[in-house]
């Protein structure tokens, strides 16, 4: 008995030792001596770089300063955010409208900065909704979501929102093929091969205003489109998508979609698609999708349901799509700064194939094909291949580029970043990550002119990196200095949600355009009160509109009587301040939604349905001045049918009627 317990103890010890030895070597060794100096941004000083990081299952986008790793802002996009009233105020509710109705959550995977001549221009950043397929455009003057467009014929919008070199198009490709929206979708799931289609959407972007519109869709075979990148430079006019599940499995994909040695990279000639579109070769399809826009003039969003989309068929319209075989379920599909090389990472493969755009074009001209897949020509692997990066590590996922002709690939399974040279495909350096890196980001790393200097790894597992916080841990980003030959880990910082892809841009491009407040003169909200003279309370049947103002430090009106049970009260709060960083908040007891956070010069509306007779306090929620605690008021709620008249004011006691 005693022996047995010693044995158990020994076994446990052995197991612990074994487990520990599996971990990358002592991480303190991985940090170089001058790391602190490199990431230290003194109090009051600005970071060098903005880093726009997807919030994953939080549905939001976060913005960090690099090199400090300081969280600067969480931008609400696809999920409601009670802190900012996003999705709760009357003005923002339409932003989350879809053809399924109001959807309060999504999963934002990838961020893309708008581009001019293949470089990030700092005007907008786009994000994708993976679950209920949508694309959002965030205005970087305000760091707010300005527009959201839904995608018909789609499921799992993953290979999105990647953009062309002059932001001509943002693409969205379906990860989960589904029957088209206008077909009868009530079909057996195992009729996948026959009934399921993969759809790729090309969303045009207005040159000046950024307005999005689905220019066309391309119907493709039912496979899983995973990631994508636009061609640039020499390959401008093409788009590349990685595809897995060319087995067309509909169950246990873990096994059934990993059967083939090679899946595909799909090359799309979108200039050719434009020609077909012009020649009227598309099919008008009746669908339903929401298009939501936010106006900075009315401070209000509108949602429109659109009903038509033009679909090009990749099977019958030749020369739009080509497949290039790619080993083992490719994930990342990244294009080098010159546009000549397409790096595809088979996540189960032991090599990283690098395709040549030039060779691909020649192969197409020479019809160097290996048959067809569902009507689409398959280019011979060798005919498009530039070369393979041998023994890069395990589980290659994503690649970004620096300004010295090097590529950096994340290795999920072996938990490392691998640096290799684009010309000779030789591995130059490897750095462990803690742990299980997914995406990575080099500053400007997907542009024609990478900035280099920093690489940020976004890790899926955090484990022991921070003080434990129970079973659920924040996820983790790691900053590397890539200025020298060897990558140097210089900082860990926690992230919100689950960070997938991120982009980084030199701060100067954006910060000079950042808006400080909204001009009250330009506010054309239908319920604005431009000054306290315009404040009032108006009853329309059981709807009561309160035109309210907020300024340090009082609300006007702050005493309101004559509200009755059964009323719907709309507090339209205008912030009269005209200075930077002076928002006012608004909350009222019992409101079943959230607070308002009203920026200077803006009007926002909180809907409130009183649930009981009595006095309900309201107050400013954002500490605004020394007399913030005084920025309060009361609403008197009387029973339905009461004869208490509407009366209101600030600094004057309303003529009150006695309680009944």
């Amino acid at each position, binding site marked *: 008995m005693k022996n047995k317990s010693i044995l158990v103890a020994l076994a446990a010890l052995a197991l612990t030792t074994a487990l520990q030895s599996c971990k990358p070597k002592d991480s303190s060794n991985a940090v170089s001596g001058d790391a602190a100096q490199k990431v230290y941004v003194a109090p009051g000083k600005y970071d060098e770089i903005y880093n726009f990081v997807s919030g994953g299952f939080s549905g939001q986008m976060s913005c960090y300063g690099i090199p400090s790793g300081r969280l600067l802002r969480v931008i609400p996009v696809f999920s409601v955010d009670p802190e900012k009233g996003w999705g709760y105020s009357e003005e923002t509710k339409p932003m989350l409208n879809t053809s399924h109705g109001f959807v309060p959550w999504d999963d934002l995977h990838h961020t893309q900065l708008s581009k001019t001549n293949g470089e990030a221009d700092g005007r907008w950043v786009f994000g994708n909704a993976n679950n209920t397929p949508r694309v959002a455009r965030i205005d970087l003057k305000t760091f707010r979501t300005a527009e959201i467009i839904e995608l018909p014929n789609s499921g799992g919008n993953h290979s999105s929102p990647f953009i062309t070199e002059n932001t001509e198009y943002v693409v969205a490709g379906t990860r989960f093929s589904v029957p088209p929206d206008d077909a009868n979708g009530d079909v057996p799931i195992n009729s996948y091969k026959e009934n399921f289609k993969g759809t790729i959407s090309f969303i045009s972007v207005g040159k000046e205003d950024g307005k999005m519109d689905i220019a066309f869709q391309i119907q493709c075979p039912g496979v899983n489109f995973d990631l994508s990148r636009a061609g640039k430079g020499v390959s401008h006019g093409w788009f590349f998508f990685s595809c897995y599940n060319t087995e067309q499995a509909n169950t246990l994909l873990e096994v059934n979609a990993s059967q083939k040695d090679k899946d595909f990279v799909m090359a799309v000639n979108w200039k050719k698609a434009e020609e077909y579109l012009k020649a009227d070769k598309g099919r008008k399809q009746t669908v339903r999708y929401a298009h939501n826009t936010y106006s900075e003039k009315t401070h209000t969003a509108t949602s429109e349901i659109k009903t038509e989309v033009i679909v090009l068929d990749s099977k019958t319209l030749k020369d739009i799509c080509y497949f290039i075989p790619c080993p083992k379920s490719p994930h990342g599909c990244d294009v080098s700064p010159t546009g000549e090389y397409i790096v595809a990472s088979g996540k189960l493969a032991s090599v990283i194939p690098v395709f040549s755009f030039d060779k691909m074009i020649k192969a197409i001209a020479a019809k160097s094909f290996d048959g067809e897949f569902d009507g689409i020509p398959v280019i011979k692997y060798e005919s498009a291949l530039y070369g393979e990066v041998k023994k890069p590590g395990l589980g290659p996922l994503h690649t970004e580029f620096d300004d010295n002709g090097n590529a950096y690939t994340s290795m999920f399974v072996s938990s490392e970043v691998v640096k290799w040279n684009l010309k000779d495909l030789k591995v130059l350096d490897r750095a462990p990550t803690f742990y299980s890196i997914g995406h990575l980001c080099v500053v400007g790393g997907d542009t024609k002119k990478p900035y280099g200097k920093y690489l940020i790894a976004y890790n899926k597992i955090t484990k022991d990196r921070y003080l434990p916080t129970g079973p659920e841990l924040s996820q983790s980003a790691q900053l590397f200095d890539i200025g020298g030959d060897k990558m140097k880990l210089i900082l860990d910082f926690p992230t919100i949600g689950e960070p997938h892809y991120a982009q980084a841009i030199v701060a100067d491009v954006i910060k000079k355009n950042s808006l400080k407040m909204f001009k009250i003169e330009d506010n054309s909200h239908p319920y604005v009160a*431009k*000054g*306290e003279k315009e404040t009032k309370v108006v009853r329309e049947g059981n709807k009561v509109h309160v035109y309210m103002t907020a300024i340090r430090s009082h609300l006007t009106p702050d005493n309101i009587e004559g509200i009755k049970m059964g009323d719907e009260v709309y507090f339209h709060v205008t912030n*009269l301040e005209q200075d930077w960083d002076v928002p006012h908040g608004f909350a009222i007891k019992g409101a079943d939604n959230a607070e308002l956070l009203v920026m200077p010069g803006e009007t926002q509306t909180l809907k409130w349905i009183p649930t009981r007779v009595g006095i309900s306090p309201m107050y400013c929620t954002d500490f605004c001045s020394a007399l913030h605690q005084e920025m309060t008021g009361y609403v008197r709620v009387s029973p339905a049918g009461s004869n208490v008249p509407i009366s209101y004011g600030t600094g004057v006691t309303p003529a009150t009627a006695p309680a009944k």
Partner: protein
Amino acid sequence: MKKLTFIATLFTAVIFASCGGDSGKAAEEQTIETANADPESYDPKRGQGKFTAELLALTDKLDETKAKAGEAVSLVKCTSCHKMTDEKLVGPGWKSVTTRRAPEWIMNFITNPDPMLDKDPEAQAMLELCLVRMPNQNLADEEARNLLEFMRKNDGLK
């Protein structure tokens, strides 16, 4: 009374301390200021800003158009906190402000309140009374000039 002053000073300190956003900006402007001018040379009659008596070149005749425009601006940006009488609301009443202060001081203060709140003795005295820093309402020069005319009208200028 002494106690009250102490509390007021404490409050002021808190306000200054809690105004993190502004202090960076203020510090930046201050550096520029001290680089160009001797700090001793602060002119409490003129205040700090771009306006001088010469620049304003006021006459003692009211410009009715300007005053009207100034009144419209005041309704949006000022009257939430200032009354036209001598009664204090959040800030001091406007009655006789144009006789208490030089016009260039008023113009500088309403267009450049933060740096002046940091150094002007009169502005600081008012802050101790009111306990709310006068917000920068981002007045355009023309708006400020119109407001001044409205204040002059309010003080009886014809």
